[in-house]
């Protein structure tokens, strides 16, 4: 067995496989399927200061090798999370991250202050990249000054590691990555979904109630790999790669591009056990290629 543990900006993961926010609920939904503690960590559903009903149905469209979603950060708000969900997470002994989103910098600060009090939450993933909310969200992740403002403000009030989740809907991902690194991010996760749309030719209507939504799944993997590679050249903080990972081979590609860990998202919908197969497959790959540790392949793309 190869060494799978890895440090991600202040977090030591037992293996480099995490699950992506919005695809893993609060972890408990998977208890019937497997022992969630086998994961390097998991990121719970996007949490906002106030509760959100999310967008109207239809919120989902199946597209070639992927899907669009326009959920719109439906969640009970941070207070509900603390009172009703957090107690149920205390049974887990792996890293739990809360994905935090907001419409204003003040929202992010208030959310982060409250999560700072939760001992069993290892880190926050700062979501400056949600394409499905009218205000805030992605707007913070598509300009360097806005991204800096959020990360700096949260850095002041949150004393555990901060992972910043970047949007791919930008001209130059490396510039944003450098900006969030300089503002205090401990690690960077990418990519969030790609702004996209689906049309029903028969009815001549958009499939989603919101017209546009976020594309995920294998369709976006080549874009995600390219962006991880670009960010790897630009920053020193560890990178958590995601975007269309369906198996260990996909995950390995992300490590080679420069990711220190990966998040599996949409694949959880299709195979609830995908993380288990991926962890095993990464170990097999390392053994097969005679690498002692996952660290031996990070950014080791042969050029």
């Amino acid at each position, binding site marked *: 067995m190869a060494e799978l543990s890895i440090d991600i900006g202040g977090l030591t993961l037992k293996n480099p496989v995490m699950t992506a926010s919005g695809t893993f*609920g609060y972890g408990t*939904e998977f208890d019937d399927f497997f022992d969630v503690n086998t994961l390097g960590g998991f990121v719970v559903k996007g949490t906002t200061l106030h509760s959100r009903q999310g967008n109207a149905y239809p*919120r*989902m469209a*199946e597209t070639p*090798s992927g*899907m669009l979603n326009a959920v719109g950060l439906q969640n009970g708000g941070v207070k509900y999370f603390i009172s009703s969900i957090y107690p149920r997470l205390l049974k887990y002994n792996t890293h739990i991250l809360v994905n935090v989103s907001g419409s204003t910098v003040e929202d992010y600060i208030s959310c982060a202050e409250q999560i700072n009090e939760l001992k069993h939450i290892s880190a926050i993933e700062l979501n400056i990249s949600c394409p499905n909310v009218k205000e805030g969200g992605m707007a913070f992740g598509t300009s360097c000054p806005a991204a800096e403002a959020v990360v700096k403000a949260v850095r002041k009030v949150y004393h555990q590691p901060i992972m910043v989740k970047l949007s791919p809907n930008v001209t130059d991902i490396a510039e944003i990555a450098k900006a969030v690194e300089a503002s205090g991010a401990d690690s960077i996760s990418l990519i969030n979904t790609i702004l996209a749309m689906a049309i029903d030719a028969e009815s001549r209507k958009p499939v989603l109630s919101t017209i546009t939504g976020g594309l995920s*799944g294998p369709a976006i993997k080549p874009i995600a790999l390219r962006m991880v590679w670009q960010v790897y050249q630009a920053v020193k903080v560890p990178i958590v790669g995601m975007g269309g990972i369906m198996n260990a081979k996909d995950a390995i590609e992300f490590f080679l591009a420069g990711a220190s860990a990966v998040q599996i998202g949409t694949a959880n919908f*299709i195979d609830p056990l995908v993380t288990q197969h991926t962890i095993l497959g990464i170990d097999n790959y390392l053994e097969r290629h005679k690498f002692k540790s996952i660290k031996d392949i990070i950014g080791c793309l042969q050029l």
Partner: protein
Amino acid sequence: MKKLVQNLQVISNRRLNKDHVLLELKSEIPLEGILPGQFANILANGSHQVFLRRPFSIYQVNYKCNSISILIKVVGEGTSSLSMSVTGDTLSVIFPLGAGFTLPEKKSKLLLVGGGVGVAPLMLLASLLKQGGHHVDILLGARSSEDLVVMENFAEFGFVHTTTEDGTHGVKGYVTDHPIFGLNLDSYDKIYSCGPEPMMKAVARLARTNQVSCEVSLENTMACGYGVCLCCVTETTEGHRCVCTDGPVFEINQLKWQN
């Protein structure tokens, strides 16, 4: 019963008409306590256009064989691929999912109303209601007589009535045109319904007018089937709720269907 993700073996595939098949799938491990109205999310082979699983009501359970049956209507590439499964194939199935129908506690007079392929979850329900000694009337609606694909199977569990849009079987028209929805609807203790949404809304309206309790099983497009993607929501009196976990069965007063 716990949610499982399993490779189930196809032990039979019965073609019922040009676009309906009944698949029987066998589990390696004993099945227990599957509720009527619960569903299975099945992975279909296909081109890159078929990415997500396809949800189907559990039509029947055979605890002796550890098998479940699934009624499939071919509507696209995913269902077409599943309909061509042959004995010995294995299919990846996540089941049993969702909340099922509520069974009555005391002896009751019950009406089951199914439209099209929406009759699927009513078969397991009808068999359990019959076992429970209830009076069961079953009203099946379809476009045409050839679409009443499992009518004979229902006859074992209750009194079957039919409507067809073209008048080729039973009363001509929609299910709500059947005299069962006439003067004595309030003689029923409860109505259970599954079918196209306009049909269920019409049934719900009549149930409400006659003050008969009514449960409906909804169908929405979904990605996961177990409450994590939050894509399949429906509007309820308590806000957006997932059809896959809070449903697919809802009591009509939970739904915002008043208009």
